[in-house]
């Protein structure tokens, strides 16, 4: 089964980290991905630019409308994600709980829906 692990945090709150801290954090993130590759769980992982950089689009009566900013203006925003292969939800939770961002952020572990073709 595949699980999307969505990292939510308050991107504004964190003071810009000193470069040494930032480097350490990045290295921990890379090491986490490497560990997932080694154990065969890794599918994909990306960090996202701040939510203010987002554009949200909708279609109203056939017309495209675009707003500046994220889909929902909430305090906690999606900051990154990783997609994993796991045996079940508990294994996915166990893997996600080790992500270095867990020091500050929350991770939503969402099962990927396998679409049924009908044949």
């Amino acid at each position: 089964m595949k699980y999307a692990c969505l990292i939510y945090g308050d991107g504004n709150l964190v003071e810009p980290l000193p470069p040494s801290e930032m480097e350490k954090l990045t290295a921990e993130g890379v090491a986490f991905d490497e560990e997932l590759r080694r154990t065969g769980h890794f599918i994909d992982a990306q960090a996202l630019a701040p939510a203010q950089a987002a554009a949200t689009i909708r279609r109203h009566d056939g017309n495209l409308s675009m707003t500046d900013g994220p889909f929902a203006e909430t305090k906690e925003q999606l900051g990154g994600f990783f997609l994993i292969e796991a045996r079940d939800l508990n294994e996915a939770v166990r893997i996600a709980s080790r992500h270095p961002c867990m020091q500050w952020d929350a991770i939503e572990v969402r099962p990927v829906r396998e679409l049924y073709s009908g044949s």
Partner: protein
Amino acid sequence: MTPIALEAIYRAESRHVLATLIRLLGDFELAEDALHEAFLAAAEQWPHEGPPRNPRSWLISTGRFQAIDAMRRRARYDASLRRLTHELKWTEELSVDLNYIPDDDLRLIFLCCHPVLPLDSQIALTLREACGLTTEEIAQAFVAKASAIAQRIVRAKAKIRDATIAYELPSRSELPERLRGVSHVIYPLFNEGYESSFGPSLMRVDLCGEAIRLARLVVEILPDPEVYGLLALMMFHHARCNSRVGPSGELILLEQQDRSLWDRTEIARARALLNRALLAGQMGRYTCEAAIAALHAESRSPQETDWLRIVHLYDVLLRIEPSPIVALNRAVAVAMCDGPAAGLAIVESILARGDLVEYRFAHAARADMYRRLGRVNEARAAYDRALGLTQQDAERRFLAARIAELEFASRDVP
């Protein structure tokens, strides 16, 4: 050392190694990780160096070493270093005499069904850790959300880690208090085999066989009437295995099954076990269900089946086990006894209470009752609902075929 040979060692040793690591570490997560790491190490080393003379103790000591290592690494993020103190306890060792439970799988099940946990946590944890079911399969078995089951398992593990008592196997005299949890693990394991919730095939015969094997071992250690009842129940079902699935893997309902394919020898054996369970005088849940299964297995056709007695037994079962699923099964029997309208009224009232709304069999049962009443539109809607809820390919094909039949029949109506 080929991958196949390693796979065989995994199958033979992983339960034993895991049970030992859980006891040593007092922590499921650590033990699971350690097991995983030990086998990764084996896959790397054994092909070059050859397998060790004693793979089991190699795996246990490698796993333990990996766990110590992981704890040291993780200690940075861990506010409490309490777990490190466990290390001190690890020197006392491996060879506790556990031979009164003569089987690795069963030993792990008895270990997991620890009375420090509430019964529902014991069952969920054991089904996952000892029987290998996934969170999602367990959720199907208990008609619960996977996230709720996941949380139950996470909390159970935390409770074990924080428990001050040792997570140990029971002594022989303590076995009976764990029996209830163990029985409640074996039956869902069988059911997942008999009516798989996911994937391509309707049945996973290996799980059914394993559940029956485990129950046989349990009655040898603890000749409890309810376990006889449980074993009889599973054997009555198992005896009908061959008639449940058609040549192309399709589901065949009880009414349409070719009863000449039923295994009469197994049914007779199940009957003997059931009689033995009934001698105890007080009928438990599994014995009662076995008595119902016996009435099906021992009648020559659906018409000759004593549906009234089945309804009465469901009344008894409902008193022992007042669950919506029992009420649903009773409704199906009522529909056979008093007609589909009577059954349908019960099913609709169960759903109106908010029970089983997401349970595929409730909608499939409703659909069938509407179909028999000639209420095609309602039948179709209910089949659609069931189809939307099932994640099992053979069931999908079955439900799609019923929908197609309805459409075909409704075209004939002028």
